[in-house]
């Protein structure tokens, strides 16, 4: 045994650890807490939407006068919900936690390429998230210009926006360190025999995600610095001259352009949405292959599609900006690229669907979440198509249709995939099993209520109801016929919240439970299951670093005794 056994204090072992597994768990816990927090913000907002201007139960006292949510606070909760869910919740969970924990295990590496950088990345994220949280306590409340922070609104917003910008700069730096680490790890530390085409799809998705983060995030960092300059040093990068805000003529020098921010922001934020979905594809692929007991259909086409998707995601960003007055030729360019990028998604989804054919499908909790992911992502992705056609987007832009579109992808999509991942890898991380009954209840209730929250959004969106409306559209006549849906959605959201209790309770009792001692409870093939114990050993991961002989999804190989052939098995 070559594993380090030297004594470590609690602090170096669990807090300032450089072990990728501990860091992964740190990422996981922090991001789950933020996810829950982001969700709570939204449950508060949904109360105002369902029952405008009535006092909010339970938390009303925190909110202030009469417990009614004021409109500026609605805006700030909305902006923070978006920011928290994306930058503090899903990305750190999907990329920071799962990526950190399982990429080295799946490629047979003993740790990440740069363990210290890894810890730095987590602490940077932690600090950034604390800064984001501080935003709630500054005068004027947290950032309230939407997660998109469009100037000039964001330039003239309250102090919370400055805090938001500092938080973002920290988070971006953290992501950069994390992505460098994942890239270097995958390129340099693959074990013997682990060629590119033998990598599990999960590793591929993390790899491409890391590339997206590496190249797309820095321009937002630049934009963030420019906006900070606008706010703190009085520059006017995003402000033309001659603005009159509440009767006061602004005295800034002018000459800037609000569209510059939008370009730099969406240059990140479109690739970012693929950052949200690619790891989900990866997890779902692992779970589906494992539970159909057969290889994934079209491994190569999956890989190529994902690489292509990653590449294309850099040239579609202006589909968020059709209505900024875009001309025809550049409009045509972005519409075309947007349609092109939908094709690899179709290919990926089709490959996953076809993988089910001929399988021997086990419906356990992770599989249910993975299966739930497919049609939900389907709905979300398909509703992206009308948005991608500028002509249709004229009516749908910035309505609840858009909100419905992306929530179908990120909530019953990505979040389900993340749940699938948590249930699937829980035995790996803890050596214990989760409760199937509670897991299934969690799935079915979440599935129903997710649809209850998001399906009506398409209806409201088609009616032309704008997003980010404090009164849920009550003031507008064109919303009158669909207003009743606000209550439906809100009640679903709260029930969705309650359904999460199954998850939380499940986690608590399972963590308290006995270790099962099984290393490979799902009969899986990848190295994370077959060459390590559960939970994996401390620093070092493997008793003996494995060598890889076959592809990642060799299930039910004809002529072999067992229905799975581990990657490290000769033969």
């Amino acid at each position, binding site marked *: 045994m070559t594993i380090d056994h030297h004594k470590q204090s609690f602090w170096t072992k669990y807090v300032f650890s450089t072990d990728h597994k501990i860091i992964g768990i740190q990422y996981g816990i922090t991001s789950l807490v933020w996810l829950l927090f982001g969700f709570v913000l939204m449950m508060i907002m949904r109360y105002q939407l369902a029952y405008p201007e009535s006092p909010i139960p339970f938390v009303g006292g925190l909110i202030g006068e009469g417990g009614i949510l004021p409109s500026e606070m609605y805006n700030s909760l909305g902006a923070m919900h978006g920011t928290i869910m994306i930058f503090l919740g899903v990305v750190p969970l999907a990329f920071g936690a799962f990526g950190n924990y399982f990429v080295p295990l799946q490629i047979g590496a003993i740790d990440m390429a740069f363990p210290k950088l890894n810890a730095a990345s987590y602490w940077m994220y932690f600090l950034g998230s604390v800064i984001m949280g501080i935003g709630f306590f500054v005068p004027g409340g947290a950032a309230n210009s939407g997660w998109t922070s469009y100037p000039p609104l964001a330039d003239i917003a309250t102090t919370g926006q400055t805090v938001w910008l500092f938080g973002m700069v920290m988070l971006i730096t953290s992501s950069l360190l994390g992505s460098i680490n994942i890239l*270097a790890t995958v390129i340099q530390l693959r074990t013997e025999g682990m060629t590119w085409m033998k990598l599990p799809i999960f590793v591929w998705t993390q790899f491409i995600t890391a590339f997206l983060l590496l190249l797309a995030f820095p321009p937002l960092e630049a934009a963030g*610095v*420019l906006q900070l300059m606008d706010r703190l040093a009085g520059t006017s*990068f995003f402000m033309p001259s001659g603005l009159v805000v509440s009767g006061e003529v602004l005295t800034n020098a002018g000459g800037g352009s609000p569209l510059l921010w939008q370009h*730099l922001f969406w240059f990140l934020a479109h690739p970012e949405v693929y950052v949200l979905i690619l790891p989900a594809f990866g997890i779902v692929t692992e779970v589906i292959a494992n539970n159909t007991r057969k290889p994934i259909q079209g491994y190569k086409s999956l890989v190529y599609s994902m690489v292509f998707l990653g590449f294309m995601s850099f040239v579609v960003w202006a589909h968020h900006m059709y209505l900024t007055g875009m001309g025809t030729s550049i409009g045509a360019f972005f519409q075309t690229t947007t349609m092109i990028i939908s094709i690899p998604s179709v290919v990926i989804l089709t490959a996953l669907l076809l993988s089910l054919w001929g399988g021997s499908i086990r419906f356990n909790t992770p599989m249910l979440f993975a299966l739930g992911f497919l049609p939900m992502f389907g709905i979300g992705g398909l509703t992206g198509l009308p948005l991608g056609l500028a002509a249709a987007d004229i009516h749908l832009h910035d309505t609840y249709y858009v909100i419905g579109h992306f929530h179908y992808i990120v909530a019953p999509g990505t979040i389900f995939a993340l749940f699938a991942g948590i249930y699937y890898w829980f035995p790996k991380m803890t050596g214990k099993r989760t409760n199937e009954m509670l897991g299934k209840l969690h799935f079915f209730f979440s599935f129903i209520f997710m649809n209850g929250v998001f399906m009506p959004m398409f209806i409201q969106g088609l009616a032309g109801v704008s997003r980010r409306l404090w009164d849920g559209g009550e003031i507008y006549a064109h919303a009158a016929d669909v207003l009743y849906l606000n209550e439906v959605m809100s009640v679903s959201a709260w029930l969705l919240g309650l359904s999460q209790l199954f998850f939380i309770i499940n986690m608590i009792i399972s963590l308290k439970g006995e270790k099962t001692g099984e290393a490979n409870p799902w009969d899986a093939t990848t190295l994370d299951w077959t060459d390590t114990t559960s939970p994996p050993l401390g620093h070092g991961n493997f008793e003996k670093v494995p060598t890889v002989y076959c592809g990642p999804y060799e299930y039910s190989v004809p002529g072999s005794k067992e229905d799975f052939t581990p990657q490290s098995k000769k033969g």
Partner: protein
Amino acid sequence: MDIPFTVKNRPDTGLYNGKLGVWLFLASEVMLFGGLFSAYVFLRTGVDSWPVGADILNVPLATLNTMFLITSSVTMVMSWASLKLNDFKKFKLYAGLTLLLACLFLVVKYFEYTAKFDHHLFPSTNNFLGIYFTMTGLHVLHVIGGIFVIYYYWRKFDHNHRTLINNIFCALFLVAIFTNWDEGIKGYETTNGLISIVLLLVALVSSRKEQFKLKTKYLILGTFFVGALGIFNFHGTGYYLFLFLGLLAIADSFIFKSNTTYESDPEHFTNRIEIVGLYWHFVDLVWIFLFPVLYLL
């Protein structure tokens, strides 16, 4: 168990981890400065008139600065080559030159900035100056980062040098204090200043003696804090210099532990210098574009 390929190249990629890592980092840096260049182009094409950099900025000084950076780049690569030839003395010489040139760059930049401020030219004056200060400011941060890193590798391992550095710091402290002497002379500030000076002198003397080494660092730290009390008295630029040097002294004494990589693993050390060099050349490269774009066009 050690992580593989931290020193040796992985056979199929031909790279060690650090080198790949730094190139990935530089890729992200390209995009960071890319965002700013993109902003520059976007803003400039969006308006009718745009000042010519040369009318506002000081081209001769910037040319001098360009020369400093280019030279520092070549000394940097020479320092790495010296290590490859196992000539440690030469390494020290070249890396030291690099540091010196980088510091000169900062000094020139400092005068450029203050000259602008004196003429009431601020980032808020117009977008040209805004982008000028943002881009060069970010570049300066990169230079400072580079100085720290190079210094980190340059100063370790040699005890005599270490003491020398401490002495230089002390001397700089004195300069910092004397530049503010006229302001700090009155009332209790004087005591403050005097305590600093006494402490510094002790530090200066003691740092020459090996056995006082440990005490030196506490003394320097103490000086810093006493001096920091004087922040309220010191105004103007000398104060910032003072603060900066104080920070450096702390960093020098505490953060940077004595490192013996070169003795134990010269190859590892050489690799690290290669990585630092790559970063440093990149900083130079950015300047090569910033210079014409901001000053000449």
